[in-house]
């Protein structure tokens, strides 16, 4: 069991990295990685929402959708759960911890449309994971998202000092850098099969 969970974690974080190999969450990955601080803030916000969202959607799937034969409502219920969770988290954080709200607040609205969150919920259903597997998968996936995000932010901050050719300035060089990062992560392929 522990071994299986470790493999799930390794796979979700490195081998099939959510952003770099599965293309889930590319918009925030490119959009919020210009500064290291925002990259770290976004990563923690994703870690939090992704973990809670995957557990809640797992419960919804097991306790509501499957027993009542409502699986065609999966996409709509999952996205609603995620959207309300984000709202709830935002309200709770705002009331209880102004410091945390300052740090995470601006990222929370962006998370609803982060396809990594819905992606993790749907993949859990597709893979038919149990509770512990779901939890591990979500935490590892968001850790992998954070790792990719922080690496790209570091590279982008150092690129700010580089004399990038005119044609590549802006999004082009960010995409190429992300591509090379994804290339480097290919080195992990084969560590876990499947």
């Amino acid at each position, binding site marked *: 069991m522990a071994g299986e969970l470790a493999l799930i974690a390794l796979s979700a974080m490195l081998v099939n990295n959510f952003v770099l190999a599965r293309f889930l969450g590319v918009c925030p990955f490119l959009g919020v990685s210009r500064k290291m601080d925002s990259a770290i803030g976004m990563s923690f916000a994703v870690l939090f929402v992704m973990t809670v969202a995957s557990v809640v959607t797992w419960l919804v799937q097991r306790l509501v959708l499957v027993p009542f034969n409502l699986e065609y409502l999966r996409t709509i219920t999952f996205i609603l759960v995620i959207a309300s969770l984000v709202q709830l988290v935002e309200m709770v954080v705002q009331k209880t911890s102004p410091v945390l709200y300052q740090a995470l607040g601006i990222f929370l609205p962006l998370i609803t449309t982060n396809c990594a969150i819905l992606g993790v919920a749907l993949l859990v259903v597709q893979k038919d994971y149990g509770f512990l597997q779901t939890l591990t998968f979500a935490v590892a996936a968001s850790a992998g998202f954070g790792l990719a995000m922080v690496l790209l932010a570091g590279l982008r901050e*150092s690129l700010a000092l*580089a004399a990038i050719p*005119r044609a590549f300035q802006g999004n082009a*060089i960010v995409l*190429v850098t992300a591509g*090379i990062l994804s290339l480097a992560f*290919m080195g992990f392929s084969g560590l876990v099969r499947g």
Partner: protein
Amino acid sequence: MVDVLVALLPATLVGLYQFGWYGLVVILLCVGGCLGVEAVGQKMMGQKVTVSDGSAAVTGLLLALSLPPRAEWWLCAIGALAGIGLGKLVFGGLGYNPFNPAILARVVLLISFPAQMTSFVTPSPWGLDAVTTATPLNLLQEARIRGLGLGEAAHTDLLAAFLGGIPGSLGETSALAVLLGGLYLLWRGHINWDVPVGMLGTMALVSGLFWWHDPAHYMPPAFHLVTGGAMLVAFFMATDMVTSPLTRKGRVIFAVGCGLLTIVIRMWGGYAEAISFAVLLMNAAVPIIDRYTAPRLYGARKRGGL
């Protein structure tokens, strides 16, 4: 840059002796390709053409030495495009590139053309009696995937691997020749000792622990040090000033990371030539390492290096 070319001379000569004309063609294509891509690219972007600084030639030679000895012409051409174009020009040229161009070129080729990048021939005087074969690292990976333990890799002649004579890339058949060049660079003060020592030391230590624990399933540390690109990458590519951390502390972290990832990917990963992936991954982490180990000076930018 001239010193680097001098340092690569022993490995180049061994390669030419063992693979003959084929090796010479690969070297000429790679060096010419890299110079050409740099000249044309800089012209197109309206920049000053800096081919004469020699760095593109070094990248070309390093690329050639890390290719299979009978690589097709287009493999060399794509390698040159990927290394100089994608690895250097798009970032604004030498000094700004976050990834080592030769490493990047090799990784692009490894994932794009796995068949061509793993078709090796045996070394023989002037390349006359060459027959198709596999490298020890490929044999090891093959055996592991089939669940056969160490397979034929267990019979690798480690002394031959050190002196020269085992199948491998053009400039990687003799660890000794590469090591001589590396020591020359150290003596001339072009590279820091901490990266190669840290990297090879970590590789030896980690592989040694596994080997000591279970010699039936893991190769001894000496095997990992003399096979594949270990020496070439540790002395000539990981040491690249531009793409390694600024401080000694940072470089040690970098080197240990490279060594650790190399062993992990070699032992359990899908690519036998793990070391290039390891360095590329650690190149990506350099800004973060610098951030936490070096005082940040805006405007002061490292330049030069290999």
